[in-house]
């Protein structure tokens, strides 16, 4: 088992004929992801990726013709809110938005509408997710993964790859790795993913990678203390980040009032009985110590 995407996922890609969309769609196909359609307004009737994927003008057309049940969005930030709304309006149940730099007030409205429609949104500003050996959606490098018992959830991109690589090198494989995104407002929270891993029989242990800013890690810690009985390990980035500065990710900012620090998150996790690593490379050992692998 895995969460959110699997071998039955029928993926459509919004922005498939753009530079990023095409490049990453090719990598997804190579991984084995079942891409059934692409959408680029004005290019309906054409094909993408050497004739392998039909292109439609609208998401509604693509869903009607192919039965797509997930959409991955690669369009530029100015058009991403519209793309998310279009996918949701076409009743695509799962939308993954890779795009970085979406204005946050747009996200407030989009988040609200998608929630009301019952659409699960992952991202924006995220690397996507990989159910190892079944489907890779987004921009993660496929070859760092190895199938195994650990579920991973993270707010980051390359930091996630770092941790996945360390786990794979140590012989600890993964079920699904989910990047929820580094923006202040994202569709799927740590708690949503933790709950899904908690309910997934194949996921035996969970790794959570957080960073400074907001209170999501603290809330997740409280949730884990209440609900999760699987072994866990965590890492929090940004112990050396100065307050009041946006550290690359729009959401990674310690408030000038002192909220959202790495220390606050670390102590919340430790209070919930979760071991927090000083370095990403220590995570496999923490998992081994917890009896995993």
């Amino acid at each position, binding site marked *: 088992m895995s969460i959110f995407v699997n071998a039955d996922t029928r993926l459509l890609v919004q922005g498939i004929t753009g530079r990023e969309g095409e*490049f*990453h769609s090719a*990598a997804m196909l190579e991984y084995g992801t079942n891409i059934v359609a692409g959408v680029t307004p004005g290019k309906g009737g054409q094909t993408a990726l050497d004739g392998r994927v039909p292109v439609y003008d609208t998401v509604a057309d693509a869903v009607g013709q192919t039965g797509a049940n997930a959409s991955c969005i690669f369009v530029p*930030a*100015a058009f991403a809110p519209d793309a998310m709304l279009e996918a949701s309006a076409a009743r695509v149940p799962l939308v993954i938005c890779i795009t970085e*730099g979406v*204005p*946050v*007030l*747009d996200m*407030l*409205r989009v*988040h*609200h*509408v998608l929630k009301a429609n019952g659409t699960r949104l992952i991202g924006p500003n995220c690397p996507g997710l990989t159910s190892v050996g079944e489907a890779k959606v987004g*921009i*993660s*490098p496929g*070859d*760092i993964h190895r199938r195994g018992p650990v579920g991973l959830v993270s*707010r*980051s*991109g*390359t*930091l996630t*790859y*770092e941790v996945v*690589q360390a786990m794979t090198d140590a012989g600890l494989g993964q079920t699904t790795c989910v990047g929820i995104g*580094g923006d*202040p*407002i994202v569709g799927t929270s740590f708690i949503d993913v933790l709950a899904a891993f908690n309910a997934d029989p194949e996921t035996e242990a969970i790794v959570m*990678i957080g*960073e*400074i800013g*907001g*209170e*999501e890690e603290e*809330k997740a810690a409280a949730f884990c203390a209440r609900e999760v009985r699987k072994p866990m390990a965590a*890492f929090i*980035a*940004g*112990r*050396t*980040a*100065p307050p009041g*500065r*946006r*550290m*690359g*990710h*729009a959401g*990674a900012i310690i408030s*000038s*009032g*002192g909220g959202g620090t*790495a220390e606050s998150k670390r102590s919340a996790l430790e209070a919930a009985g979760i071991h927090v690593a*000083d*370095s*990403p*490379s220590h995570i496999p050992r923490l998992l081994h110590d917890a009896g995993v692998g």
Partner: protein
Amino acid sequence: MKLQEYRSKEILARHGVPLLAGETATTPAEARAAAERIGGAVVVKAQVLVGGRGKAGGVKLAATPAEAEARAGDILGMDIKGITVQTVLVAPAADIAKEFYLGLILDRAARAITVIASAEGGVEIEETAKTNPGAILRLPLHPLLGLQEFETRRIGFFLGIPADLRRDFATVMRGLYAAFVESDADLAEINPLVVTDDGRLLALDAKITLDDSALPRHPDLEAMRDLNEEEPSEIAAREAGISFIKLDGSIGCMVNGAGLAMTTMDLVKLAGGEPANFLDIGGGAKADRVAAAFRIILDDPNVKAILVNIFGGITRGDEVAHGIVEARSQLHREVPMVVRIVGTNSDEAKPILARANLITADSLDDAAAKAVEAAR
């Protein structure tokens, strides 16, 4: 992006919020001329983006134009938390009968724009939150409907706005909300909002912070950026499309990805060193951007070593290695460089780095330790 008080007031005034705008001045003579045009007593206020300028002596009353000139002379050039004051705002003084705090924030937890109001105006809201949390009203607004009249009334009653000023308060509240939404702010606050002795409701001070992601659609607001208060290196980085924040340590960091960049800084610290910067070079790590990143890092004379940490992933490691070697050959200053490249084609990257006499490392922990050692 933070806006100066006078810029924030410009935006609020455009949306109908009543305030005493005043004029900016960059010399004492300009301040005097402004005070003469305004007439009567004025306040001379340092325009800096750091908090606590009042306590630092950056806000002074002046009864006459001559006094305004003298006070501006005191304040201009003053250092407030490392920022040299280059501009003052000269604004009409007001006799304050009552002060309030009124703000809107992007509330991540509530996923809403939230009103924050307190009858304890003139002090920082974080302070009130500590000393008297019951005095604060937090009211998340509906993300699609926005501010409603009943909410405005509720906030007015909570604050104890005098009955004859309720209509004016509604104007302030609507104006603040419109300013927030139309400028894509993530913070807009009036502190204090005052009732004057002669019964007027006025915004005496204002602060607006904009969502950086929305700036591309607001070129007029982007033009309000105060370059005087930014590190020259941070300006150069922004122009090169690099996310960069200067810090005080000696180990320059160049990393792809924000989370990994923070982690690299943390591991430098864990290895006993201090990071000189946060730097996310973004995807691809192309040669010209690598070169720009090196120049920005090395412009800081404190930098004694550079740690490059690239998780190749989609990017090919050998291409990154070529980019690093090429960029390094054009640098004006030599410091030890520790390079770690992982992911696709990282094995092909190693001989390229070794030929260029760069220190290489396999793990991030090892790379951090080597960089700290090299900076000694």
